[in-house]
């Protein structure tokens, strides 16, 4: 019975897993490969300036390998970094190609060290910044604000041109008034027709059409002219209706009308 050994093996696996998970479970918590590298570099317990990039590259590659064994999906950029670090590792281990144009492993490692140091510095700066006395938490602004009253005053201006133009506009307003008939001195045909209709019933004898003008339309020439025209037009209308007869002895002589008696 090998049960005991199986249990041992299982236990070892659990132990292994636990170790691996110490970092890997938290893979979501890392902010990218650079952050992970920074965390790994701390395990070297040295000043960041003396960190061994070669060792760091190995640590990272081990990490990625473990993640792969545990079937943890790593984001692409972690794998890109792994590939790059593998390249860097080979560069650091192999003697430099004397006629090569490529940057040396040392240069690449130095740059990575710089990046790590810079990220670390910015993290510390962020912490220092957040630890400063802050407005609204440690330091306070004036509580009773006295608002600045804004007085808006307007200065009106006008130019001489504006002034003259305004005057011109006022003075010429009449000239541009739309044409409207002044109805006080106008007699319409309807008015004359109404009047004539009520009067012709009594007109048995020939009489001057002008005699039918209303009292106050005789004198003023404008009114007289309008009343005459309206009354004449009305008389033509009544003649057409067969209610009156019209006669004029010669051109420009008196126009006379009388009632037409129906047969």
């Amino acid at each position, binding site marked *: 019975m090998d049960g005991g050994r199986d249990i041992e093996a299982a236990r070892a696996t659990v132990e292994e897993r636990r170790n691996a998970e110490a970092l890997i479970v938290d893979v979501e918590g890392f902010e990218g490969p650079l952050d992970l590298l920074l965390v790994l570099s701390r395990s070297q317990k040295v000043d960041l300036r003396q960190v061994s990039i070669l060792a760091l590259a190995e640590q990272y590659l081990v990490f990625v390998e473990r993640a792969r064994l545990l079937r943890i999906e790593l984001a692409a950029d972690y794998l890109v970094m792994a590939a790059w670090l593998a390249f860097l590792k080979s560069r650091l281990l192999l003697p430099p190609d004397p006629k090569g144009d490529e940057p040396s492993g040392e240069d690449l490692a130095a740059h990575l060290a710089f990046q790590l140091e810079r990220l670390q510095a910015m993290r510390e700066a962020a912490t220092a910044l957040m630890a400063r006395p802050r407005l609204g938490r440690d330091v*306070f*602004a*004036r*509580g*009773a604000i*006295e*608002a*600045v*009253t*804004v*007085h*808006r*005053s*307007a*200065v*009106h*201006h*006008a*130019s*001489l041109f*504006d*002034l*003259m*133009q*305004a*005057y*011109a*506009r*006022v*003075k*010429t*307003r*009449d000239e*541009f*008034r*739309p044409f*409207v008939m002044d109805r006080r001195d106008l007699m319409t045909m309807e008015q004359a027709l109404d009047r004539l209709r009520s009067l012709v019933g009594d007109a048995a004898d020939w009489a001057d059409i002008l005699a039918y003008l209303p009292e106050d339309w005789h004198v003023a020439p404008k009114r007289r002219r309008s009343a005459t025209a309206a009354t004449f037009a009305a008389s033509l209308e009544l003649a057409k209706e067969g209610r009156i007869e019209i006669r004029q002895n010669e051109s420009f002589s008196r126009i006379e009308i009388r009632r037409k008696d129906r047969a």
Partner: protein
Amino acid sequence: MTQSPEPAQFDAPPRAEAARMIEAMLFASAEPLGTAEMARRLPEGTDLVGAIEDLRAQYQGRGIELCRVGDAWAFRTAPDLGHLLERHTIETRKLSRAATETLAIIAYHQPCTRAEIEEIRGVSVSRGTIDQLVEMGWVRLGRRKMTPGRPVTFVVTEAFLDHFGLSSARDLPGLRELRAAGLLENRPPPQAGGQEDEGEAQDSLFGD
């Protein structure tokens, strides 16, 4: 809000330090702070009254003063500096049409009564329009007219002549010159020159 610094466990601060504390509290508070509230926040045994007295003396004659408001205290701007909290902005605006026309009529016809202005404009003139011109210093009251009712007249001022660069109102160009200058050819806008009896309505619409 509920942040209590447990003041009781500290020793009572010296008066100068107490004054600092009160100064900061009063400065940051939106409302006047009552002595009870201050005492609650200050270390036990603080000489509140003495510290306030010190503080008040320190601010004597300064740009802000420590004022007593009932049983509370607050910083206030020194009364003589209130003007610093005011900002004056001046905008230049074109004189309204009603005002320009009224001004023009007064200038051309002065001394000129309100009724005369209305007759020439064909619309009633609102009080505000003449008031505005008076306030601007371009129009002032002239002598009363010796006609029934003795109505007041309006005339233009020196400031008006100054502004328009005229040595006297007689220098204003006459109608003929206006015509020669092409100013009379301008067709009046459609709303102008309607029926006389619409004047009232127009004034409220187009007046200032």
